[in-house]
């Protein structure tokens, strides 16, 4: 097994008596594409927070390959090869599209290296390729602040690609996108998933169906059901808590 997989076992997160995650276990194989659905407050975002080091679990194991993620901060986890796209697109407004991607590009991350960094031809080519992919080539020199909501979504996906991660966590990527863009995104994620693991949190069931992947249903911080989209949609427990009401 060359690429690492994600392994979560018995993870609980308690805020002031409120159990945001309750004994959650989840395994994502290397190269797998996984969709995660669940009603509001099911713990989807908290799960992402735990994996990326933003929140420390109260109990449980979180591993990525051999690395124990519960002991690392966000930056180290990111450098392990875990990239995250937020629900609300966050890009650097004051920087141009090109510069946003340049910052995300896989390269030494310490201040000294950044001070001495010179953009090589190969790096420039990679950035241009990704700009092509996300359809922002024409906007390379524009500050991110003036992009539309959909373009910001794309820019953030582009930044994820620049990071070249082994595991991508994507939170509601198609919010605010047109149908065509949604389709494009689904295709992109499917294609990426061949070489790396992708976890997608989404509300849009059409989009999840388009991903054509295993689906995990969360409810009140625990795993409710797992399987193909059809299996899940026909699971009576899922129908009760999520689809039926």
């Amino acid at each position, binding site marked *: 097994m060359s690429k690492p997989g994600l392994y979560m076992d018995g993870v609980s997160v308690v*805020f*002031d008596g*409120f159990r*945001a995650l309750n004994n959650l276990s989840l395994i994502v194989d290397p190269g797998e594409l996984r969709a995660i659905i669940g009603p509001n407050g099911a713990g989807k975002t908290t799960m992402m927070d735990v994996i990326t080091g933003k929140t420390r679990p109260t109990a449980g194991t979180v591993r990525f390959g051999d690395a124990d993620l519960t002991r690392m901060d966000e930056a180290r986890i990111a450098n392990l090869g875990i990239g995250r796209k937020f629900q609300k697109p966050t890009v650097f407004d004051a920087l141009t599209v090109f510069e946003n991607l340049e910052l995300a590009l896989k390269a030494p991350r310490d201040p000294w290296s950044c001070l001495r960094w010179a953009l090589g031809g190969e790096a420039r080519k990679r950035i241009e390729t990704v700009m092509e992919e996300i359809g922002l080539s024409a906007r390379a020199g524009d500050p991110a602040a003036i992009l539309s909501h959909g373009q910001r979504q794309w820019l953030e996906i582009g930044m994820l690609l620049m990071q070249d991660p082994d595991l991508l966590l994507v939170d509601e990527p198609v919010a605010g996108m047109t149908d065509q863009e949604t389709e494009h995104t689904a295709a992109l994620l499917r294609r990426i998933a061949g070489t790396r693991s992708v976890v997608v949190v989404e509300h849009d069931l059409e989009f999840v169906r388009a991903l054509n992947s295993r689906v995990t249903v969360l409810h009140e911080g625990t795993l409710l059901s797992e399987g193909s989209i059809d299996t899940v949609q026909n699971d009576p427990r899922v129908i009760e808590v999520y689809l039926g009401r």
Partner: protein
Amino acid sequence: MEKRAAGQPAARTIMTRILPLLLVLLFALPAAAQDAFLDALPGLAGGFGTQAEAVERLGAGGDARALPVLRALSDSTLRKNGSTVILPDGTDAATGRPADTAGAETVRINNRVRSALRGALGRLQLVSAHADERYAAADSVFRSRSADNVAPLEAAIARESVPRVKERQQLALAASRLVAADAAVKRQGIATLGEASSEDARALLLEARAANPDMTAEIDRAVASIDSRLTFKRAAETLFQGLSLGSVLLLAALGLAITFGVMGVINMAHGEFVMLGAYTTFVVQEACRGIPWLLPWSLPLSVPAAFLVAGLAGTALERGLIRHLYGRPLETLLMTFGVGMILQQAVRLAFGAQNREVLSPAWMQGILSLPGGINITQNRLWVIVFSLLVLGLTLAAIRLTRFGLEMRAVVQNRRTAATMGIRTGRVDALTFAFGSGLAGMAGVALSQIDNVSPNLGTGYIIDSFMVVVFGGVGSLIGTLVGAMGLGVLNKVIEPWAGAVLAKVAVLVIIMLFIQRRPRGLFALKGRAAEA
């Protein structure tokens, strides 16, 4: 920080009360005593040996007329002209009529006379009609340490009815017994001193220890017992001073806990609102001067006035400027700092840069003596009581009133609150006005223990922020614990490090504490805190 020497006004009142009394006594004295007084008096104009003898006789006579004479002698304001002894006001001490002061010279004394004076003055004052005077007398007898004092003290104790004075007299008696010739009397003295809780008693015993090698064991036991009580006393006084400082911090920080802790608005002009409150107190006091019966109540009147003034200033600041900067805390910080500057300068120009005096009403003055020799200044006690009262009112306002409910609703979810018909803008303004008003009330309290000057507030603003951050932003109970904790911590460190380094140390401790608990003692946890 201490405002004025606490003893000074008290001493003045004692003098004004004592003098008429003396005059009455002057005319009511029995003839026999008059003779003894007149007999002894000329001795004061003689040589040092004669003087000492005369002093002893005057002291033993118990004649109240001797008191001003001996006092003048001890202050070097007594003059003599031949054998006539002249009081500082130019009257003949023997007749009370104006004396011939031409060629008069100051009566000079030596150390022997001075020590005789101490005892004599003390003994004379032991029979004073005023309790404070008798207390002071017992004190001076205690220090003069002469076996001759035993008899007058025993007589005084028999007559004494005020417990505080009696206690002091008994101590003085014990001290006098310590130098008695009779070993049994001495032992009695040691035993009584062992029950005291003062440094003086301890020092006396240690002195006696060297002089009486045969009584070392008893003395050591007595000293040990004093030490344990002194440790307690010191701890209690440190605690009180800490709580006193803490209550000041609490008052200053409560308003911040509302505006910064609850609303998230960082108001650097908060200290200036405190200052406005203090100046309001001054203005109210000056306004009350014209109405004498109102004057003692000017301080309670200032509380609502200061709340109003600072509250209005706060409303103006919030509506006029701060609300344009919501969501930009760093800008708000800078802007309000500028407003603070303007307020300071405006007050400086209006009232002058020098300190303004705000008097304490009589009912707040004086010292409260608790058992165990613990002394507490009353105005500081009032500040503690006041701060807790204000805290209670604040909690009640937030938890029990409609305004409090709306305020909490807006804090938790502005949009939902707005959709439920709460006018969020009005709630913001009222909340800010409330927090600023609290600052004004803090100013009333601070006027009692600190100088009222234009930069009164700057000394408190950083400490107040530290209290809020230390206690946990958004928690009033955290503010209480933070303020009291920091106050006590400060006073505990102070004896070792001095006041300034104690402050520095506290700042460092807070910084290290924030490392462990970045959200303070009483942190909001969970999702609400993340937002």
